């Protein structure tokens, strides 16, 4: 069988179970694809020996009939996840050489379910970015291309999105603090879900903004997202915010029936200057859900406009605290010191050398908004606005809305380097439709829904009620089926 790397998780799982394919064959197909895709710069630490070892073990488990859904399936892991004995540096120079002695809970659950890690995936440094251009490894490149330009795969999970779209792996892990799963998924024609805050353990995932960070799967289909999400979720005593709730069989909830569901269309998301193509796609998505038997209602989320500025207070504030641990003492990079340098110079030089410009900027903004005299004016005010943003959603759900449909991004993928001279705030606008979901702790999924006039993928986002990822994925499945998105990037790499 050829092109095994192009299979979905569900297809490969079924072929593994019938014995028509082996995990070793699947893994070798992916490793070959990765070898041939250096131009995409998606995989930044490859683990072929480890992958083949795990594939053999998975085949043995499959032969014994002891095989969870993910058993034998080759996946990529975002560099933000600590993986035992394998470089994990959050795409930052400051973690150069760091090889964790432990495995993150999410990647351990996938490993224990038999999934085969192919290597670590490119991303924005410390997950701070929307274009994968802040990575110490250099840019990840979108496999989608319409002219001579290299396009961004989005960020921060840009390597994950590029790898899945280019069939270098069957699926990948991502993390999402303000849109870092959903925006890259939209830019690459793939599916990405950020579950409810607390669904996936954050233990062992390099922390950016702890009250916003969540891991999730990045996959080729909604069904695959359901399969992989189930394996990633679950209570973990090592994360105090991990929810002690049963994890449903998400795949079994993909009934394709959304009759009687109410889908909200938030009027505040129709922002000034929204491209006509995005608006048209959004309307089309609403029509598809209506045709499937859902009731479409206009809703209001009045504080939407303030989500982005609130996010850019809260996330840097938390980051400035979380990143205080990178001091050149316990792990990673330490600057070469001059004669007479003391410990303060060691911290300052190490952090100046180890953090890139965007990370430095956010740490300093966070430090400023938490400093004496400004804490109330910025940080506390932002947290109050966050309460109001969450309340907007609660009121919509209380009024009977089951899910909310919005565009995933304000544009299709843009060219790498095109935002280089722009103000950082311009880059932040990429997250305008996605940050609200992190602030409110809700589940959100991006589904590929069409191509723009240049031929680049566009995504729609569905936002669900807390803990109702199964219901949300079912609606996403209906949207996916109706949109019938089957386009793949033409191979140029």
């Amino acid at each position, binding site marked *: 069988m050829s092109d095994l790397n192009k299979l979905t998780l569900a297809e490969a799982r079924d072929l593994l179970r019938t014995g028509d394919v082996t995990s070793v064959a699947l893994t070798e197909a992916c490793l070959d694809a990765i070898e041939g895709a250096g131009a995409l710069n998606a995989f930044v630490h490859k683990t072929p020996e480890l992958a083949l070892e795990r594939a053999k073990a998975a085949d043995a488990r499959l032969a014994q009939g002891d095989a969870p859904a993910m058993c034998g399936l080759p996946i990529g892991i975002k560099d933000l996840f600590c993986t035992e004995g394998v470089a994990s540096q959050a795409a930052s120079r400051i973690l150069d050489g760091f090889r964790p002695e432990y495995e993150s809970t999410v990647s351990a659950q996938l490993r224990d379910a038999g999934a085969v890690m192919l290597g670590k995936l490119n991303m924005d440094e410390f997950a701070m970015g929307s274009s994968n251009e802040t990575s110490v490894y250099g840019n990840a490149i979108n496999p989608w291309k319409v002219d001579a330009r290299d396009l961004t795969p989005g960020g921060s999970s840009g390597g994950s999105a590029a790898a899945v779209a280019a069939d270098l792996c069957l699926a990948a892990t991502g993390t999402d603090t303000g849109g870092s799963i959903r925006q890259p998924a939209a830019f690459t024609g793939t599916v990405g879900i950020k579950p409810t805050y607390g669904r996936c353990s954050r233990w062992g995932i390099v922390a950016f903004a702890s*009250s916003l960070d969540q891991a999730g799967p990045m996959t080729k289909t909604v069904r695959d997202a359901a399969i992989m999400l189930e394996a990633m979720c679950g209570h973990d005593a090592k994360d*105090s915010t991990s929810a002690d709730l049963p994890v449903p069989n998400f795949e079994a909830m993909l009934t394709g029936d959304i009759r009687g569901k109410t889908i909200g269309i938030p009027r505040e998301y129709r922002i000034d200057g929204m491209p006509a193509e995005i608006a048209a796609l959004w309307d089309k998505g609403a029509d598809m859900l209506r045709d499937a038997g859902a009731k479409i209602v206009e809703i209001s989320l009045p504080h939407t406009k303030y989500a982005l500025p609130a996010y850019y207070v809260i996330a840097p504030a938390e980051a400035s605290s979380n990143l205080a641990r990178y001091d050149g003492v316990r792990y990673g*990079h330490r600057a070469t010191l001059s004669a007479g340098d003391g410990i303060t110079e060691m911290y300052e030089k190490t*952090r100046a050398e180890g953090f890139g410009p965007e990370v430095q900027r956010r740490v300093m903004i966070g430090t400023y908004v938490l400093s004496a005299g400004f804490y109330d004016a*910025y940080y506390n005010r932002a947290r*109050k606005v966050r309460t*109001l943003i969450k309340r907007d959603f609660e009121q919509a759900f209380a009024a009977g809305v089951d899910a909310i449909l919005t565009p995933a991004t304000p544009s299709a993928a843009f060219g790498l380097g095109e935002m280089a001279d722009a103000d950082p705030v311009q880059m932040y606008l990429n997250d305008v439709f996605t940050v609200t979901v992190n602030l409110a702790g809700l589940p959100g999924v991006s589904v590929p829904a069409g191509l723009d006039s240049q031929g680049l993928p566009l995504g729609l986002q569905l936002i669900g009620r807390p803990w109702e990822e199964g219901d949300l994925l079912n609606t996403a499945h209906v949207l996916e089926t109706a949109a019938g998105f089957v386009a793949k990037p033409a191979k140029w790499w």
Partner: protein
Amino acid sequence: MSEIDLETARKVAKLSRIAVAEADLPELAQSLSNILTFMEELNEVDVEGVEPMTSVTPMRLKRRADGVTDGNMQARILSNAPDAREGFFAVPKVVE
């Protein structure tokens, strides 16, 4: 319009323990000012009587017995240190 002057930029860099060259301070101050200006949109919101959000989901933090759950792994803990000696993390001299 929020103005971060050079003195404030220098202070924020110091508090953040990030070395910034004097020559780079004006650009840093400008960049921080722009971001803070963007954040000032929050001043339009009426937050009178609103509690700041402290917990994303309405749950009580779990408690556990206050006991040792792990340990005895000195070598593993030191394995990634840039400078470890005699079972300790080593740093430049702190006390004169």
